[in-house]
């Protein structure tokens, strides 16, 4: 898996999901979508690949996905059929505290 730092853009190997890293832990971690490790944005997914049955919850554009420890945060920039996960543990959608529009 490519090295992650804030701003890095990655894509799913098995669906159309794309993400941008907002926050990443210092150590290398295995971030997956649909059960398979993420790829560099420009990499090509294997033809015919699909999310594993237990990792096909889908992603929503514009949502932020966080790890249980809170040290990994991804912004979904393109939606897809897979579930984002850190190892085997699914990431959860971060609740946004709405701010009033200021511009």
């Amino acid at each position, binding site marked *: 898996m490519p090295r992650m730092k*804030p*701003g890095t*853009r990655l894509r799913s190997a098995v669906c159309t999901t794309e993400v*941008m890293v*907002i926050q990443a832990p210092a150590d290398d971690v295995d971030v997956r979508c649909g059960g398979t490790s993420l790829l560099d*944005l*420009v990499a090509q997914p294997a033809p015919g690949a699909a999310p594993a049955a237990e990792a096909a919850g889908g992603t929503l*554009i*514009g*949502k932020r996905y966080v790890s249980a420890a809170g040290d990994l945060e991804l*912004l979904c*920039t*393109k939606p897809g059929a897979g579930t984002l996960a850190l190892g085997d543990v699914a990431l959860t959608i971060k609740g*946004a*505290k*709405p*701010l*009033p*529009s*200021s*511009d």
Partner: protein
Amino acid sequence: MNIAMLLEMAADAFGDREAVRCGSATFDYQGLQRAARGAAATLVASGCRHAALLDESSPAVPVALFAAAAAGIPFVPLSYRLADGEIGALLGRIAPAHLVTDAARAAQFSDHIGIAAVTRAAFLAPGALEPVSSLPDDGDAIAILLFTSGTTGAPKAAVLRHRHLVSYILAAVEFGAADAEEATLVAVPPYHVAGMAAVLSSVYAARRIVQLPHFDAYAWIALAAAERVTHAFVVPTMLARIADALIERPVALPALRALSYGGGKMPLAVIERAMQLLPYVAFTNAYGLTETSSTIALLDPGDHRAAFDSDDPGLRRRLSSVGRPLPGVDVEVRDAEGKPVAAGERGEFHVRGEQVAGEYLGHGSRLGADGFFPTRDAGFIDADGYLFLDGRLDDVIVRGGENLSPGEIEDVLREHAAVADCAVVGLPDEQWGEAVAAVIVLRPGATVRAEELRDFVRARLRSSRAPERIEFRVALPYTDTGKLLRRQLKAELLGDPPG
């Protein structure tokens, strides 16, 4: 990290929703994306190093902003209010550059070395080149250069990098938060940071932008009614004129939900009048600087309502606060030695956060070793964490060794029933170093003697704050974005030619 990603996401998720309207010209998000990527190809092929815009608001503004980002070069919106010589000097600093402008200026500036001047229509016309398909990914690259007004010396170019702007948008705006019927009225010019922030915020929220190129209160009200505008950003002078116009010629604006304001100090009387006239509208005060990618603190609608409805002077005072910092933004008040001061004590605002750029081209970063940016704004933070802004540190009056805040004295003068507007400046004085001078604009039909105003200030503040010199004028000099031209006023009082 690239601001053009924000448009890419909106085009993917809300492609056929209207993105921007100016008169009868419209683009949906897909159309905006297509135009920006097409124009980006032209920019790349031209070999220019900046994409400049010398034009009023139009759909060419968001197209050029996102095209420059996709091409990997800075976007430079220039003020069309500048004199030709000043514009020529700025163009010299950014050449080789592509310049989007009106027909007259395209002809005028096309013979400048390194400037490829094109009209807005030519810029928006589909080109023959293959559109740019993938975005440059350097978050450290410059997204926008904004020339500051340059009241001293040559204008400085404030640098906003992609990571600053993307951080601000991701922290402040929820993607696709707007309903399909929402629309925001943008009346600030493109060369103001609020004009740039409005494009980025609205695109990411998928909120339709309605542009008003020339602000006039009646035109603003008519457009807000016709387009069923739900949101708007105004500078204080705009809100004052809109309130006056609504009183003179009442118009129902039932769609309007939220008004945010910033870009200068809001007089208490103006916000109170606006809240009375538009009781169903949620007001937000947004405090920010060019160097901080726009908003760093907010006084939210709940704060406004609680203060407006309260008889408690402490709570009521919050209507003149600029609110509390955004999540992830730290604000401290520090003294002249750089040490943090206690709550309620005055000093300079220092700010830190991912969105804080604090950098000028060719001058490097102004951030301290601890990441804080000294804003040159003076004020204090109360015990509840609310920020109160006095004005620019450079405008502080030093009288007999005592630091006086013009904003504090102006606030008191504005409470007088006869005073419509006022400005306080320091003038050279042999005895005190500086003396306090006040310029007063009276309400229509009102009269007051200078001595009465002096007593009024003396009764509320220490006697050193009472203006030694008081002049009456019919109006004060403001920029078109509502900033008081203090230096010009001071020069006029000293008998110098204005400039």
